[in-house]
């Protein structure tokens, strides 16, 4: 229980980051995760349940939880909130119809006290599709500028092409890393 062993634990904990990937169904959460992990993305079916992936990024170990986005499942999201350092919210930029849904779910999520202090990365996904909304439009639609409880950033990307995924990940890891840990 000496300082040296306390430090060893603290340092180890600080190297591990827990990320939660959420968003409406068919937003591309699993695809993003598989793309990041270098897996085949041709045969992805709706996530019935959840996935856990452990990735290495800039010296940090990321434990990424990807939970299905179907309406019936959303109420179970909260089972995964504990000790979350960052939330990655994935948006289907081409799904203009459900932007309102998306905004509502996001708002509800940010009310959750166990996510207080977590960094929020928004992936405006599917930019490769025609008719995809640009990030600044999504920012307006989702009223992101009203979010003052979390650090957030929005990044347009495409899981299929892999474009800009890394930028987003860099930001979220950097943002988490740049704060001093105090919440266990």
């Amino acid at each position, binding site marked *: *229980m*000496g*300082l*040296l062993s*306390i*430090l060893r634990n603290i340092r*180890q904990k*600080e*190297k591990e980051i827990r990320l939660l990937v959420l968003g409406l169904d068919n937003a591309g959460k699993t695809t993003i995760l598989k793309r990041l992990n270098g897996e085949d993305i041709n045969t992805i079916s709706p996530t*019935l*349940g*959840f996935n*856990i992936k*452990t990735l*290495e990024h800039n010296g940090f*170990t990321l*434990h990424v939880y990807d*939970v*299905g986005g179907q309406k*019936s*499942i959303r*109420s*179970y*999201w*909260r*089972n*995964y*909130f*504990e000790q979350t350092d960052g939330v990655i919210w994935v948006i289907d930029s081409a799904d203009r119809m459900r932007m309102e849904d998306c905004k509502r779910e996001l708002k509800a999520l940010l009310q959750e*006290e*166990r996510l*207080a*202090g977590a960094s929020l990365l928004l992936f405006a996904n599917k930019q490769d599709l025609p008719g995809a909304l640009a*990030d600044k439009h999504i*920012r307006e639609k989702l009223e*992101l*500028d009203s*979010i*003052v*409880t*979390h*650090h*957030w*950033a*929005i*990044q347009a990307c495409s899981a299929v092409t892999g474009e800009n995924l890394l*930028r*987003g990940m*860099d*930001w979220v890891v*950097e*943002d988490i*890393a*740049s*704060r*001093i*840990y*105090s*919440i*266990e």
Partner: protein
Amino acid sequence: MQMEYEILEKNEDFEDDTCVKSSSHFEQASEFFSYLPILLNSIDDNTDNGEKDVEQERILRKLISLIDPYQEQPYLLDPHLENMVKPIVDLFRIYIKSFNAQDLFFSRNSKDNLAKDNKIQMSNKIKRLFTLMYYLMKIRGYKTIVKFFSHEVSDLEPTYYFLVALDSQDYTGWEARYVLLIWLSLICMIPFDLKTVDSLADDTEGKKFPLMDHMIQLSKYYLKATGKERDGAAVLLSRLLTRRDIAEVYLADYIQWAQGEVKDNKDVFTITGILTSLCAIYKLGQRQTLLPTLEIAWPCLSLLEDNKIFANNTLVRKMLVKLAQRFGLCYLKPKVAAWRYKRGNRSLKDNLGDNSKTTSIDPLNINQSLREVVDDDDEIPHQIEEIIEILLNGLRNKDTVVRWSAAKGLGRIAQRLPQELADDIIGSLFELFSENTYKHNDVLELSAVSDHTWHGVCLAVAELARRGLLLPERLSEVIPWVSKALKFDLKRGTHSIGAHVRDAACYVCWSFARAYEPKVLAPHVAELANSLVVVSVFDREVNVRRASSAAFQENVGRLGVFPHGIDIITTADYFTVGNRVNAFLEISVKIAIFEEYKHHMIDHLRTITISNWDKRMRELGAKALHNLTRLDLDYMINIVLPYLIPLATSPDMDTRHGALLAIGEICLSWSLIKGNDKSWIEEHEPLITRISDIIESLPDTLFTDFGSEVTVKAAVSHIACLAKANWPVTSEIMGNWKWVVRDLLTRKDEIGQEMAIDALDAIIFHYGIEKKEILKYPFILFHIASLLYLSKKILGFVLALGVIRYDKIPECLELCVDSLILSSKLQETKMWNDPETRRNAFTSFTVISKNLGESFKTFCSKSIFDKMIEAAFIGLEDYSVDLRGDIGSWIRKASMMYLGVICPLMARLDQKDPKCKPWLSDELIKKVFGELLKQSVERIDKIRTCAGNILTELLYAKSDDGGNWLFDITGREVLQSILPKDEEIHWISPLELYPRMIKLLALPEYRLEALTGFVIAAGGLTESLIRHSSSTLLEYASELPNTSTPGTFTLSEFANTLLEIFRKYERQDRVVIPLLEVLDLLLETETLQKIDPNSFSFEDLFECVKKEARTREIRKLDCCTRVFCGMTTLNEKLRNRSLYQLLSLLVHSFPKVRRLTADQLYLTLTASIEDEESEEMLQIEDILTNTDWNNPVPQLKEIRNQLYPLLGLNLPVFRSSTTS
């Protein structure tokens, strides 16, 4: 001696490093993955076979042993975890599904699903995989491992029912049960209504459903287990019951049940199981869901009031403190501290430069401003007060784990409190600090405080500080306590306690670095930095020094306001402060160069270290002051010495000791700084006089009382330092000094004697000694007149004779050498013999020779030189043994060391003076080499090493002109080939040494000595020594040529040399017993039998053995018996003579000898006589084997006498027997 002592200490400190093996990656990965498939594939292999089972068990152990070393750095396994875990889990799934356990369960339809009958029996193969999985979870933590398990809806029922079907009492299956419980805890995280998954669920029923009923029931059952399953069940329960759908229906019931159990159950396992589950539930669950249950659970906290039997159970107490914390966290809403982002970066690298990295997201798309959420006037529930009370009390608990848990709890709870309430906690902590302190002369006295409390409070302060909850306004209050805690050290009897408090105080300082901005800490920087430096360098404990250095580093890295921070962290890092001697003597000087730290460091040494309870600390402290004097002499003269002088006569023994040492060391350093400039003596006369008077002012009782040796030793090293400083003293004081030194010299303690000699050497060197003093000290005539009663006391004086400078009083030389020679010899009266005295005599020879050096011949006559050399040769023959073993080896070693010094010295002097006949004759040189060679193959490895090193040194010594070898010796080529110059020879390794050295026997010049050495080693006691020396010797002998060609070494010469040894060492068992052993081996291997009888007289050998057989030493008699038996194979005449000897040994007065002889004789006769079936032979065998040789001798004699005719011998004429 001092040096050895320090080296020992260094080793001690280094152990700490070596026990933590650190690697940079999982080194055995490929090995692991080459073994793993064997276990995986074994599942499909249906041929059951015990051999395979053993092999697979071995592989399992191998796999575990590959990962087990990573317990300390488990994250190194991370890159491989997926490949380790996944294939095993895949197998588990197939295996489990193949059982179809739920059908089994449903068909049986038994309510009691825990009944013992009809259980699934797992094969050993699958159990092994579960065991391996358990080890992975143990080493890396189940949370990390379980992430790689599958968690599909379809996994739930099969896995659960499989667990149900396992025999819960099977003691070889607990790993499987634990792994399954953990696995289930993951599966049940699936985001679906679990009721829809349950095949037994009935839509019409209420919200409860059978699967969950069963799972909770099973978990409760395992919660009471005595093994690991208990933890697994707690994890599973917490996962199940914190699901929203399950919590609604089941949570309240469970809490109710748990509370009831906690109240009434007396089983310690059940209690810990339940408490573990509660802690986990209140950690995982959602606050709003849990809040209503808190009221039900609350009584659990008073468990110890109802169940006093657990009051002494550490784990239960820890769990209760933890539970209190979790309750508290449930009552309070989490808050986020905005400062988390403001205060620096987690990576020190960024603060120390390199901050080039920028994010690549368009900055416009980023929002990194947080609005501080204003405290909505949430009411703080009244229970919080009680919880904080529990936690504050936990800080004072006698168990570290409880205090630690309480400290963490306080930190977490305070984080959610409004500022003023959090500040109340800080206030309470200060109260705990001041508990049991009192003011004494305006100084805060800590001697009555509890170290537990201080440790706990420090941890709590650190936890609060780390979270930014210790507001800057409070800092000036807390820093003084922290400074005290950093040096917390309470004397308890002969030792002290408090290392854990100091360590925790370092944690506080470390946390400061994380919580505050530089400007907040600025007013306290000097105090903190100085305290941390002092603790990093001068703490007694390695972990505290390292902790302090880590805290210092954190402050430098994050705040950058510590003066010279970067220089200091590169000097005093984790590794350099690990070694205490290094930290005290080297690192301290490098840091004290900086003005900001210098005086604080010196002050710590003078006020604290010199009074430390540990003598080694005081010694090191004094040495450190010596080194620091160089940096600030004025401070030493004006502040430190005046402070220390009164302490030298302190009533506290430790302080007195420390002060005397420190004053001595500082003064010595002072004089060294001044060198030849003597003006300081006048300049500081009053101070110098005060210092000179110290010894005089020590009360006489200190030198006679119990425990006086500490003071005497301190006084003597004080004197030694002053004498080395050539301190100006009056003859009266000098007389006093000599008296003190002499006092220590007469004490038995050898370390003390060496210290006294050190002092005396300095005194004689700087102040000289008069002849009448030498005579007045009982230096010379001590042994002649008073050896009897002085005994142990003389050995110090023997050393004292060595340090006299005879070039100053040459007239004393011969007298002194004579008395040294006298004391170097074995005394006829055994009780006068003292090996240390003899050893010291040779040590003195060495010192005298070294001191005379170049002028040796000027002051020492050849006859004195001859006498000394002669004595050294006698010393080389010292093989005295007492209870401590071969104590003669000390003397042999000292003699060799002397020869190693005097021979090169004399050889050089002889060369300088070519006209004169050399004092070191060729014959003498040859003898020296012979003796050294003999010692270099002897049985004690230290002696071999000593002899070997001197031998090589002499062999390769060059004369002063550089061209020629210093010693002109015979057989140089052979010696050089055996001992090549550039090769390191491992003298301690018999395996390497003997085959190398056996070639020496080819040199007739050294043959006798070398063979003697070999024989002694071959008959030694250490198994490896005997094996290598005797096998080398036998092999060598068996390969010797039998025919004599001039210039070669033959077998008969070998045998003749053995005979020569026999004669030389007649009746000296030390040599003779090993020699007999060797003879036995030579006869047994039929090596001696090959010798041409004309070139060697076996009769002479026989006579020698016969002589030795007249002994009462059983081991020797045993050897003789075996040699006689061996000799029966030589020739007819010797056979008969040997048999006569053996037959007489058959009636020896010792029964054991009779038995041994009968056995040996039987073995020899049955092996050698060809006609085995003859009538006589059968009779002989019958007599030898069927006689009870323990019977009385007269009775045995009659039986024995039957043997003579049977062996074809005449019955000898017996003299009238005197044996009864």
